[in-house]
């Protein structure tokens, strides 16, 4: 494993922006810290800030481990990252619009047509359909890691239903509750206004002519892993949290069933995959969706956020083309780095990947949540051989990347404080403008040496501080 960038220390000395924290921490007694950590766990459990674990007994809920050492980013670093995020998300939205309209980027020969039209996430139903403000990915979660000597890389773009923003907000609330004195020492950019920004953003993309749009959040239900977040955002925005069964289509409009009769719905922030949205159009066995929704959507009488078919742009086989998209649509050089990526669908790249499995990270192109991936250096020979067979059987289903030495941040573990690898997911909102709150969700891999930060795989979270000076 290569050496990694330490967020807090450089050559054994504390980095400038962590100095005040470090001096505070060293003044705390271990008992106080232990008490605060137990308090945090108890509060999360009581408040029910949990996620459901799939594959376990139905309805099993777990608290995501919360670490009290914040992840601190300087104002200067954030400025660069923010500019890069705006640029990237703008290009991605233009790409999706292009794909579902003129396909100029394909005609220009930059993206091979089979990459798009044979992609399971491409939705022919969206071809030629206009959506409000030409925005498709209204809410994007861009996963960023710091690697090597400290450069930021985009690891993946999440343009379908990215989750985690509620933990970003709850982590901040928790830190302020447990350690208010720290916020006197640091000028930390606030994030609490995210729900307001989100609501403004959703209202701004209402169907044409609707002046006072009714916004709802659509959830698959309380057994979904991110249900807490759905309920949380609905409450924070003051909008209804609906399930498919609460909605129906009548006379080319979507309504919700209320105790006072049907009420028209204009914008649906749906936290449910394309496949389940409308049993008449997609999966007929879906009981989560709304029959007829697609046809109302296609005629522009309801907005879905995110749009149908955004998956064509966030799948890992499209990821390598994002820098070219930025150049093509914006005539700008990409600000954020992409990780070098081998596409197993290409014969020569496949050979390289198979010859170097023990060095690489291999991912399914449609995978998410850390499921179905191989981290070569961390796997046994048998696991690698097993995975090799899966790649050979369906090479087009995989991409590979070098095992990045993700940066690490000091983290409380059983043995005390130790460095653990982290990433960062900022949440980028697109509507009439592109906006975001400073920072995002920092996830941390709690196992020593582990690079998998997903909460479904035992990862934890940290409060993320963007400093204002």
């Amino acid at each position, binding site marked *: 494993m290569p050496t990694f960038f330490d967020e807090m220390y450089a050559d054994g000395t504390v980095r400038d922006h962590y100095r005040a924290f470090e001096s505070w921490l060293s003044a705390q007694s271990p008992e106080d810290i232990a008490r605060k950590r137990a308090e945090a766990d108890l509060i999360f459990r009581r408040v029910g800030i949990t996620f459901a674990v799939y594959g376990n007994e139905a309805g099993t809920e777990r608290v995501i481990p919360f670490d009290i050492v914040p992840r601190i980013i300087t104002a200067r670093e954030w400025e660069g990252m923010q500019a890069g995020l705006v640029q990237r998300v703008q290009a991605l939205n233009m790409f999706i619009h292009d794909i579902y309209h003129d396909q100029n980027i394909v005609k220009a020969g930059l993206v091979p047509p089979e990459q798009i039209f044979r992609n399971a996430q491409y939705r022919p139903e969206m071809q030629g359909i206009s959506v409000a403000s030409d925005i498709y990915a209204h809410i994007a979660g861009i996963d960023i890691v710091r690697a090597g000597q400290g450069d930021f890389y985009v690891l993946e773009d999440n343009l379908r239903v990215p989750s985690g923003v509620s933990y970003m907000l709850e982590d901040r609330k928790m830190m302020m509750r447990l350690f208010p004195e720290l916020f006197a020492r640091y000028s930390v950019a606030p994030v609490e206004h995210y729900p307001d920004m989100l609501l403004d953003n959703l209202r701004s993309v209402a169907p044409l002519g609707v002046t006072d749009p009714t916004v709802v959040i659509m959830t698959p239900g309380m057994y979904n892993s991110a249900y807490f977040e759905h*309920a949380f955002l609905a409450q924070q925005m003051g909008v*209804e949290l609906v399930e498919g069964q609460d909605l129906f289509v009548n006379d080319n409009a979507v309504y919700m069933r209320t105790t006072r009769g049907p009420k028209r719905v204009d914008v649906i922030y749906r936290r449910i995959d394309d496949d389940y949205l409308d049993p008449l159009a997609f999966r007929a066995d879906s009981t989560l969706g709304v029959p007829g929704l697609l046809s109302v959507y296609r005629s522009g009488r309801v907005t879905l956020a995110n749009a149908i078919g955004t998956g064509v742009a966030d799948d890992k086989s499209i990821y390598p083309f994002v820098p070219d998209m930025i150049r093509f649509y914006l005539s700008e050089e990409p600000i954020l780095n992409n990780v070098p990526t081998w596409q197993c669908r290409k014969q020569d790249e496949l050979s390289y990947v198979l010859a170097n499995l023990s060095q690489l990270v291999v991912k399914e192109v449609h995978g998410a949540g850390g499921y179905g991936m191989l981290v070569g250096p961390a796997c046994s020979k048998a696991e690698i051989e097993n995975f090799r067979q899966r790649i050979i059987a369906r090479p087009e289903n995989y991409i590979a990347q070098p095992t990045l030495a993700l940066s690490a941040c000091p983290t409380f573990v059983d043995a005390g404080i130790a460095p653990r690898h982290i990433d960062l997911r900022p949440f980028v909102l697109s509507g009439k403008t592109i906006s975001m709150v400073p920072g995002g969700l920092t996830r941390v891999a709690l196992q020593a040496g582990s690079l998998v930060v997903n909460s479904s795989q035992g990862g934890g979270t940290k409060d993320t501080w963007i400093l204002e000076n």
Partner: protein
Amino acid sequence: MLSRTADHLFWMARYTERAENTARMLDLNVQTGLLPQTPAAAKRGWCNTLSISELQGAYDVKYPEVTAHDVLNFMVRDTSHASSIASCLRAARENARAVRGTLTTEVWETLNITWLEMQNQLDRVFDSDPGKFFEWVRHRSHLSRGVTFGTMLQDEALYFIRLGTFLERADNTARILDVKFHDAERNADDRPRNHEHQQDFYYWAAILRSVSAFEIYRKVYRDAITPERVADLLMLRSDMPRSLHACLSEVVRNLRAVAVDAGRDTLRFAGKLHAELKFAHIEDILEQGLHAYLTGFLERVYELGNRVSRDFLVPAAE
């Protein structure tokens, strides 16, 4: 408000109330079990408890005979059926979780903490001291009602919660009365003769205590405890918070608040039931036969619940 949201709120309240009433009923039986009684009477007490909750069949499948120990376990911790206290508290919490955004943080946390603490209570308290466990259930129910009333905006959400609480309570009080009176009527003979008067006193006093009405009885009647007065108190007194009359008053009040467009017929249905209790004489009811009356009442409360569902909670598809 979304119909489904109202439905979850309604059932959240019903399950909380049901857990409390089940605890009250079981506690009543544990308490009367401490009095001298024939084994047959003791066993009948537990059989009655099962039949009040319509659980005799499910119980018989699992256990060869009716014993205090098995009935308690079955009705408290067995989650294979929906009526145990553990199932009710879980269902209340699941319903709350489904609409946690509609509840105040305090209400949600109260129900969630009840659920989180339940296992501990079952493991550490229930076996050694059932009475203490039942007290805990009652207190959690008091707390969740108080927190609801004390923190929630007085809008539809609160009205549907209250509607659930009082419909459930009307049902539960009627069931307790029905079974106990029926039992007393049928089995007046097998009590020890020489103790008859005393026995009656303890029997009715225990029932009053089970609905927190013993002191109220003393205050209201200042006289010996008679079955007629017990019935009067638990059915017709408007100021006794667990009486049928008081429950229906609340049902009508909350129904009136939500029945703006839909539900006018349901409101009329509830109003009629309420008026009957309001103007009834206990002598007339007893003459007609208490069991017959309560059976009819339970049917109408059930129908009322169905109508509320149909009008507000699970409206038919357009």
